[in-house]
């Protein structure tokens, strides 16, 4: 076992696109870091900011929200709402001094297995040097 810090990333993945994208990456045997705890949601627009705060509160080192590209939402507009909401959450978290790298959003379609692996790779690479997220984490 190495002592290297392995971040835990909670990823809220839209069932119609990003979640399928991650499956595609899996079945295509693409390699990517295993730091992600995926949570499939019906739409990126259904991700309440409370889920994000709660993930950090319960010890996530990073949180990703991933949905369909603009125009591709299964429910037509969900990802546009998400875009607004996530922008606000991101600003708020940065305002109190959380490292901006720890909270990210991406558009990943069902066909973009490759992009999904890249998003995760980049995410892990960026937050590894930051070390564990202790600011918002519950003391257990």
């Amino acid at each position: 076992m190495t002592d290297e810090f392995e971040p835990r990333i909670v990823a809220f993945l839209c069932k119609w696109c990003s979640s399928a994208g991650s499956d595609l990456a899996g079945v295509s045997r693409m390699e990517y870091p295993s730091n992600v705890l995926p949570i499939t949601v019906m739409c990126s627009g259904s991700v309440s900011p409370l889920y994000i705060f709660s993930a950090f509160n319960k010890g996530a080192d990073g949180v990703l929200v991933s949905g369909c590209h603009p125009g591709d939402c299964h429910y037509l507009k969900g990802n546009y709402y998400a875009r607004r909401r996530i922008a606000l959450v991101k600003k708020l978290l940065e305002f109190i001094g959380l490292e901006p790298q720890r909270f990210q959003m991406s558009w990943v379609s069902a066909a973009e297995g490759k992009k999904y692996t890249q998003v995760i790779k980049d995410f892990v690479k960026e937050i590894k040097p930051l070390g564990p997220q202790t600011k918002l984490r519950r003391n257990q």
Partner: protein
Amino acid sequence: MVKVEDIKKEAKRILKEGKVKYIIGYKKSTNGLMSVPAFIESPEDVENLIWDPTCVYNLTRFLVDEKRRKAREKNPDERPVGIVVKGCDSRAIIVLLQEKFINRENIYVLGISCETTGVLDEKKLLKKLNGKKAEKVEYDEKDNFIITTLDGKSKVPADEILAERCLECRANFPVINDILFGEKVDRKLDNRFKSLEKIESLSKEKRWGFWKEQLDKCIRCYACRSVCPMCYCDECVVDTINFAVTADTTAEEKAQRIKWVEKSPTTSENFVYHFVRAIHLAGRCIDCGECERVCPMDIPLRFLNKKMEKEAKELFDYDAGFDPDQPSLVSCFKDEDPEDFIR
């Protein structure tokens, strides 16, 4: 200048004519300087009404109580409630109308213009007087407040003891009213988000240091939530049990209620509470500053809401509390909303 006699005259009229069932206004407190909310039911009690710089409360919060009380009554009095509002408070009414929480015909708005000043900050005043007790604070013709202490009267430039929010106010004039007191005076503001710079200019770690210290102070008395006219949810994320319980609610439903926040006042739990509140108020907070005023631990809560107000303006060109017909901030979008942060 607003004359309290004019307000009383109108209050008396609408009560006498039975136009309203009661009026929510301000009266003098028993323990000293500050005003307290008054619920005036009869024309005789109108004499208690006051208007001075200690009328800090955002009384629209009591419209939430009124709605709940009415819902419980079998034969509710359908007449409107009269309510005294300042510019900022009137914008809370707009948001409540926008969210269809209240109906226009259920309120009779007595709007007061703050003109060139506003209301005072009790803590600033105490400091100004070196801990001495003020008996009375009044408006002056100019931009001064007249303070009466046991030593006599003195004039103080309003700016020195004005509430922070009044210094950054763009709505010193009621945007909605049935009758208006005072004049519409334009206000010049270089930067309505100036106070935020103090924090935004800090480094990331300094910002966290600042907020950690603030969050640690919280004792979770929920005064910020209780005083806020926008915090009208039946059940809040911090409540320990389901409030919306009926005879049909199953044990499983109750058991499965997620405990998002522990009751312990630790940094992490206080963070979730205040952040849920901040994000829930994004595009709804009208900056009445009540949360910050009532906080017994002096947590600068207004910064969180102000930050959201600023981002709503800068990212989405959205202003809360001016137009009851506009969709709320997070239930609308524009194609050109920024997405440079998305991968």
